[in-house]
């Protein structure tokens, strides 16, 4: 084990140069505008930024070896030593398990090596997440510690703060917690009641207030706390602004409530944390005084992408267990796995797991690129897709298992309970959909403003251009964004799917333009429109991710690449029709009234086929074939 650790250190040292460059960059004040055009935002304009996503991001061979050596022991530990059922029953992670996690270095996965962490890249962090998520309580505890708890120090902390806190946090000697939520304040920063007042000697802030639902609240000794402080404006007026603080438990006046009794992730510690006249030195202000809002936003935005791979890891394990049951249980002299309805469920699970894995690793790869690309939309999309797919798949798996899925003696119902939280924490999926849609629309709006203005003013040439383009669209112009063809990025076996993606992207951008033209800035209030925009974008991103990944597998010649192509094609077909449906809904002039009633099955403006919610026959045929393949494969293992 220690040898492995040594190896890691030395390998890490080799990468130090690159890492240093990255960290000097990270020390800049928090960025507000993206330095490079992100992929998802460009989709709103009808462009596919090929160089961002094609080919699928590769991991260097060194890195791969390193991670593989590291993954082995962790996996062994999780499968052999962690008793998830016991953790769930007792509502507590045993101390020896926590100690082992610390000794494996899992408390400092993304802490830079210079501060004693593992300094893993995002891709490697995602890979480890797959294994850690075999026990959701542990995964949540670790995520609360490093994805949000200490992330503030990495992102916004000064040199001194990093040197002071990170080493102990990375080793797990100290556990971190993120204290933002209050009884009256969820996502509403204005209603934060916790207050920090500067003491008379101006050396301390006195912190008062209470926070609720703090993961690790009872274990943590370092808290990232957000509180209101009085800040003098440039024009002399005093305003209340949010400031982030690093608070140690030793500062005094900190009490934690009793652990909450939760539906799932029962092993993780969640409780209230009260601050009563806690004296925080001014050096412990994280970022600037009054700049806590941006710190919080950045922490939240950066922590999301890893959920995709974590859920995929959990799902793969679940599929394995369920398949074992389906292939052994006999009814009417046939295995469950021979029944079409059961096979369909496996296809669904395999497809969802494949898509979320692709999305997660694509995002991780994009984040690992130099130049700190702003991938917060992509990360949010991964979170939304993976959490919802997880809930759906776990539910389907329980269906396959029948009665034993419902019994507490088996692990399945625990997985169901655990996976419900995924849709809620780290920003509920509803709120993230708003974020996805609005951020993209803001970007598109800036570009389109000039054009739209001209249209509104009645500029003849612009109107003519728009009209003629509409006419051409309606005449069935084939959309070609250059994904296929002789030197295309997508493998010819997925040409159809690539065309579907292109067509969706094209019409999506048209719809976005129409929506912006129609609603302008009041689109913020049109939440039903925004939800559909977000759904389409998530589908588009998923399609891109699977096309890119399956193309790579084909070209590299990976084992079972034909399955990947099938999965990709199936997903693209489904997503394509879902998108068409959503687009036709968006195009309705009275969307809201429509929403309250039942949707009418009326014509839509696309030259493409009518809206189908089911798969077209060839895809179903493909699916059946695929199912057999998957089941055979799984049952042979």
């Amino acid at each position: 084990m220690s040898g492995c650790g040594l190896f890691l250190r030395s390998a890490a040292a080799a990468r130090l140069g690159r890492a240093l460059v990255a960290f000097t960059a990270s020390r800049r004040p928090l960025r507000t505008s993206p330095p490079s055009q992100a992929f998802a935002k460009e989709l709103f304009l009808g462009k596919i930024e090929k160089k961002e996503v094609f080919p699928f991001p590769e991991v260097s061979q060194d890195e791969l070896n390193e991670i593989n050596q590291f993954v082995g022991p962790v996996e062994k530990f999780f499968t052999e030593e962690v008793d998830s059922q016991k953790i769930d029953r007792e509502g507590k992670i045993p101390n020896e398990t926590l100690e082992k996690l610390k000794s494996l270095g899992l408390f400092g996965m993304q802490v830079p090596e210079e501060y004693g962490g593992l300094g893993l890249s995002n891709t490697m962090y995602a890979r480890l997440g797959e294994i850690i998520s075999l026990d959701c309580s542990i995964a949540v505890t670790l995520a609360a510690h490093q994805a949000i708890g200490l992330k503030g120090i990495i992102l916004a902390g000064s040199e001194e703060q990093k040197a002071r806190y990170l080493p102990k946090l990375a080793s797990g000697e100290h556990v971190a917690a993120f204290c933002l939520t209050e009884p009256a304040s969820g996502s509403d920063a204005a209603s934060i009641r916790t207050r920090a007042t500067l003491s008379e000697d101006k050396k301390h802030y006195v912190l008062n207030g209470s926070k609720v639902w703090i993961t690790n609240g009872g274990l943590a000794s370092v808290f990232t706390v957000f509180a209101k402080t009085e800040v003098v404006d440039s024009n002399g007026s005093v305003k209340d602004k949010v400031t982030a603080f690093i608070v140690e438990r030793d500062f005094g006046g900190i009490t934690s409530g009793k652990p909450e009794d939760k539906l799932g992730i029962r092993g993780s510690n969640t409780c209230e944390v009260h601050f009563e006249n806690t004296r925080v030195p001014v050096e412990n202000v994280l970022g600037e005084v009054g700049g806590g809002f941006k710190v919080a936003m950045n922490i939240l935005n950066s922590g999301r992408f890893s959920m995709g791979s974590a859920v995929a890891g959990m799902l793969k394990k679940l599929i394995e267990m369920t398949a074992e049951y389906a292939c052994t249980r006999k009814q009417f002299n046939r295995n469950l796995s021979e029944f079409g309805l059961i096979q369909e469920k496996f296809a669904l699970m395999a497809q969802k797991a494949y898509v979320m894995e692709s999305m997660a690793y694509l995002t991780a790869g994009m984040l690992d690129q130099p130049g700190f690309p702003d991938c917060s939309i992509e990360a949010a999309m991964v979170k939304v897709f993976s959490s919802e797919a997880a809930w759906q798949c776990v539910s389907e798996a329980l269906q396959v298992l029948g009665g034993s899925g419902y019994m507490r003696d088996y692990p399945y119902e625990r997985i169901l309970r655990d996976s419900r939280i995924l849709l809620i924490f780290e920003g509920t999926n509803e709120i993230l959909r708003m974020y996805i849609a609005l951020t993209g629309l803001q970007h598109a709006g800036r570009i389109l403003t000039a054009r739209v203005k001209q249209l509104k003013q009645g500029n003849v040439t612009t109107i003519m251009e728009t009209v003629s383009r509409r006419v051409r669209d309606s005449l069935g112009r084939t959309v070609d964004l250059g994904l296929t063809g002789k030197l295309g990025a997508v493998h010819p076996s997925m040409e159809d799917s690539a065309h579907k993606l292109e067509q969706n992207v094209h019409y999506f951008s048209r719809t976005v333009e129409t929506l912006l033209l129609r609603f302008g800035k009041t689109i913020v209030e049109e939440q039903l429109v925004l939800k559909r925009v977000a759904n389409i974008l998530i589908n588009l991103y998923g399609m891109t991710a699977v096309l890119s990944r399956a193309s790579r597998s084909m070209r590299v010649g990976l084992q079972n690449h034909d399955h990947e192509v099938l999965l990709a094609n199936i997903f693209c077909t489904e997503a394509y029709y879902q998108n068409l449906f959503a687009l036709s809904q968006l195009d309705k002039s009275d969307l809201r009234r429509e929403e309250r009633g039942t949707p009418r099955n009326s014509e839509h403006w696309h030259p493409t086929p009518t809206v189908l919610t089911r798969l077209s026959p060839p895809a179903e045929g493909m699916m059946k074939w695929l199912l057999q393949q998957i089941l055979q494969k799984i049952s042979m293992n």
Partner: protein
Amino acid sequence: MRLLRLREVKAFFQGHAASHQLGWNWIPRLSLSPKGLKILAASLSCCGCPTGKGMSWAQAILLARGLSRGWGGICSTALTGAPFSQVMPQAPRGLHCSTAAHNPDSPLVPRPPEPQRGLVKALAPHEELFRQAPDGVQDKASFVQAVQNFTQYNVHKRGHVDFIYLALRKMREYGVERDLAIYNLLLDIFPKEVFRPRNIFHSIFLHYPRQQECGIAVLEQMENHGVMPNKETEFLLTQIFGRKSYPMLKFVRMKLWFTRFKNINPFPVPRDLPQDPVDLARLALRHMEPDLSARVTVYQMPLSKDSTDATDPTEPHIVGIQSPDQQAALAHHDPARPIFVEGPFSLWLRDKCVYYHILRADLLPPEEREVEEIPEEWNLYYPMQLDLAYGRSSWDDYEFNIDEVEEGPVFAICMAGAHDQATLAKWIQGLQETNPTLARIPVVFRLSASSGELLASSSGLEETPLTPPEGREEEENNQQRQQQSQS
């Protein structure tokens, strides 16, 4: 027939428009105002085609005349004697029309006393049946006993129509006006099979009109009290009048419309309203206030609880309601702008009319309105506003909603036993305790004269006017007082 159906519905709604506007209080007392009642009856008479085989217009007119004559008869005896003129002004003046008919100047409010007095005298023969209760207890049992006495001692059922009319009037005294069994019992008095039409001419021309009208009157009173007829009623009616008769038609229509109107009111009013004026005011205020977090405060209890005269002029009750949002709005009100106490406005709760006052301000002129600013750092997760130069154009605004018409904020509502300025000033004083800013804001009393007040007019067969004469006097006093205060 289709057209006539529509007319029927229209007439129905017309008749209830008044109470409809006053807060949905007309269900299930389908026929609240006398006008509606008559229009309904007339439309019933002119649009009904009991044979269902089609009927010429002339026949319909003929029938209508026949029925209107019949109705005139009822009106002159049992009903209130109000006219049909609003319904069929062009109908030829028939010989049999009652003298009260076709008087365009007649008031909408019925004039109950005179005809009823005559009626009571005329029906005196059966009156003694209802006085036979041994200990003077008036309940269901004694009512049933009276009816049974009639059928027992009157084997030939002589005078049964008069008796049924009398019984209908007595029902309220005995508290059985909502009892379906009693209505069926009354219908059971009719001799069976006698009044059934035997040939087509019987069914075209009103067969035994007086008996049919009496049957309709029973159903009418059921309708007024929201009693749904059942299978037994249907069986009795077919036995007495046959399928092709007007009571049966009325029955079918009740079956049709009652189910449709039963739950039409989205803000249901309890069937039995509280008698105590304070409780009633509480209920009415809750009924009007959409905010669930609003608090009802009793600022003043009536002086003597025991006295039935709740509108004691010296210490009338004052009950008010105010929601936290309204309190906040009042706190932010600019003290330089006056606020107004306005009223009284009427609110109907079933058959009761209550009056309320509001405390309101004028809408700020557009240039002084503060635009609600979205704070910069508000939402941790997504942008609350987009940085775009343009908004939604006006042609795309389909948001118009009668609920959102801007007419100035309302800060509080109150109901008081008296509508004069002195009483309402006490309310304002009470409000100042929870709204300190109110002390600095000039309050103007804009109390309308009785224009907003409707006399509680009721149209039931035996109902007495709900507003006691003292109330009228008091209102006159109020008017005088208001005039004094205005001058």
